[in-house]
C-alpha cells in the first residue's frame, strides 16, 4: 500500500484520533529539533543559560512521550486498528521513543556545554560539533518531513545520511585524539567535546531509526537490520 490516509473512516472520531497522534509527534519532533540546535549553539558560544533551557525543556519532552504512549494505548483499545491504521499507531509508539532519546542526547550535549564554560574552552573540535550538529538536525528535520508526507523515499534519503555522520564522527575523533596527545592538559576539556560528538552520532542513529519506522508505516516493510542497498532494493521492487 503506497497511499496512507488517516481520514475517511466511517467513524470520524477515529480520523480525529489518528490525525491527533500525527500532529502530536510532529510537535514533539519540533521541540526535539530545537533542542539539538540550541545544545550545539550552547557549546559553540559557551552559552550556559541556553544550555540550561535545553535541559529544562527535556521535562516537557518526557511528558509528551508519556502522553503519546497513552493516546496510542487508547486507540489500540478502542479501535483495534488494522493494516495502515495499525502500522500508524505502532510507528508513533516507536518514533516517540526515538524522539525522546534524541532529547536525552541533546540534554547531554547541553551538560557538556555547561561543563566547558566552567572548565574553559577545549582547544579544538568546535567546528566538528557545529558541522555534525547541522547534519543530524537536518536528518531529524527531514525524517519528520517524511513522516508528515508519508514519503518512504524521503525517509530512505535520511537513512543514507547516517553513513556520512558516522564518517564525520570518526574523522573528528581522530583529530581530537591527536590534540589530546599533543597537549595532555587539555584532555578533560577535549573529553567534553568527544562526549558531545558521541551524542550527535547517536542522534544520527536515532534519525535513521525514525526513517526505518516511516518506511514500515508507508510500505509495511521491516527494514530495521538491512543495509541501505537492501532497503533500496525492497523499496523499488
Amino acid at each position, binding site marked *: 500500500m503506497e497511499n496512507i490516509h488517516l481520514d*475517511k*473512516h*466511517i467513524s*470520524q472520531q477515529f480520523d480525529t484520533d489518528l490525525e491527533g497522534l500525527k500532529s502530536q509527534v510532529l510537535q514533539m519532533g519540533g521541540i526535539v529539533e530545537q533542542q539539538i540546535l540550541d545544545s550545539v549553539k550552547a557549546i559553540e558560544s559557551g552559552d550556559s543559560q541556553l544550555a540550561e533551557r535545553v535541559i529544562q525543556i527535556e521535562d516537557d519532552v518526557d511528558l509528551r512521550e508519556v502522553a503519546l504512549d497513552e493516546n496510542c494505548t487508547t486507540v489500540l483499545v478502542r479501535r483495534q486498528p488494522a*493494516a495502515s491504521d495499525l502500522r500508524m499507531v505502532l510507528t508513533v509508539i516507536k518514533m516517540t521513543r526515538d524522539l525522546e532519546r534524541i532529547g536525552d542526547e541533546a540534554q547531554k550535549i547541553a551538560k557538556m556545554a555547561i561543563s566547558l564554560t566552567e572548565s574553559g574552552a577545549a582547544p579544538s573540535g568546535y567546528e566538528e560539533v557545529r558541522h555534525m550538529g547541522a547534519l543530524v538536525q537536518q536528518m531529524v528535520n527531514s525524517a519528520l518531513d517524511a513522516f508528515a508526507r508519508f514519503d518512504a523515499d524521503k525517509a530512505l534519503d535520511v537513512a543514507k545520511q547516517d553513513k556520512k555522520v558516522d564518517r564525520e564522527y570518526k574523522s573528528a575523533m581522530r583529530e581530537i585524539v591527536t590534540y589530546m596527545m599533543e597537549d595532555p592538559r587539555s584532555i578533560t576539556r577535549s573529553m567534553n567535546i568527544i562526549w558531545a560528538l558521541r551524542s550527535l552520532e547517536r542522534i544520527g542513529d536515532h534519525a535513521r531509526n525514525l526513517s526505518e519506522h516511516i518506511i514500515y508505516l508507508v510500505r509495511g516493510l521491516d527494514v530495521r537490520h538491512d543495509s541501505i542497498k537492501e532497503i533500496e532494493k525492497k523499496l523499488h521492487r
Partner: protein
Amino acid sequence: MKETSAAEKSANIKQDSDINQDIQNVQTVGTPFSDSAKMTMRNVDVFYGDKQAIHDVSLDIGKNEVVAMIGPSGCGKSTFLRCLNRMNDTIESCKITGELKLEDRDIYHPKQDVVPLRARVGMVFQKPNPFPKSIYDNVAYGPKVHGLASRKSELDEIVEHSLKRAGLWGEVKDRLSSPGTGLSGGQQQRLCIARTIAVSPEVILMDEPCSALDPIATARIEELIAELSQNFTIAIVTHSMQQAARVSHRTAYFHMGKLVEVNATQRVFTNPEHALTEAYITGRFG
C-alpha cells in the same frame, strides 16, 4: 473534530461509486492456491436467477488449514461457503458453474450423492440448531444414519469422543438424556460442532458460528477451532475481523461477489495487498 467539506464528501462518494463500477475488473491478488489443497475451487460463478452472486472465484483450502472468509454484508462469502457442501441445492433459482472439488472428486458431479458429501464436508451454522432430541441423540443421529456404529457401545464411544473433542463432555456427561435445546447458546453451538464431527468429516464449514454467542462462549469456540484444525480442514465465514485474525491461517476478502484478496492472515491485517481490503478492514466502508 475535523470538518469534512461538502466538496470533499462528494469526492469520497464519487470514489466509492468508482470502486463499485471497477469491481468487475478486479483480479484476485495474493495466494489463493495451496500446495496441499483439500478443496479446490476454480472459476466458480453462482447465480440466483438472473442475478450473479459470485464472479469467477478460484480458491484452494489446504489440508488442516483454517481459511477465514470476510467481507461486507452481501459480498457472497456465505453463498460461496454454502456451495462447498451443496447447501444451495435446495434453492431452485440457484445455478453454480465452475469446478469445485473435494480432493479429486467433483462435488457437483451428477452422480455425487449429497448425503455422503455432507458427511465429508460438515457445516456449523450461525444459530445453534440442535435437534429437539436428547444431547446423546443429537450426537448419535449422524453416526446412526451413516451406519458408522454397529453396536450400542461403539455409538457410546463416538458420542463421548465427539463431545470431548467439542469440549462439552465435562459439562454434559451426567445429563446425556436431557434435551439438547436446554443447554446455553455456547453449549448448544458446541453440541452442534460435536454433532458435525461425530460423522468424522474431513472439512468443517462454519457460517458465523459465534455471532449469537457471548465473548466467553466465543473464546471457547475459537479455542476449539485451533484444536480441530489439527485434524480437520476448516473454512469459516465471520463478520468479526478480530476473530478472523485470531483463528485463521489465511484470510480471503470478498467484495460484491468477487474474491479480491487471499493472503496469510498476518499479512492481510498488517499490510493488505489490495486497496479494497485495506478500506474494509480499516473501517473505511462496509
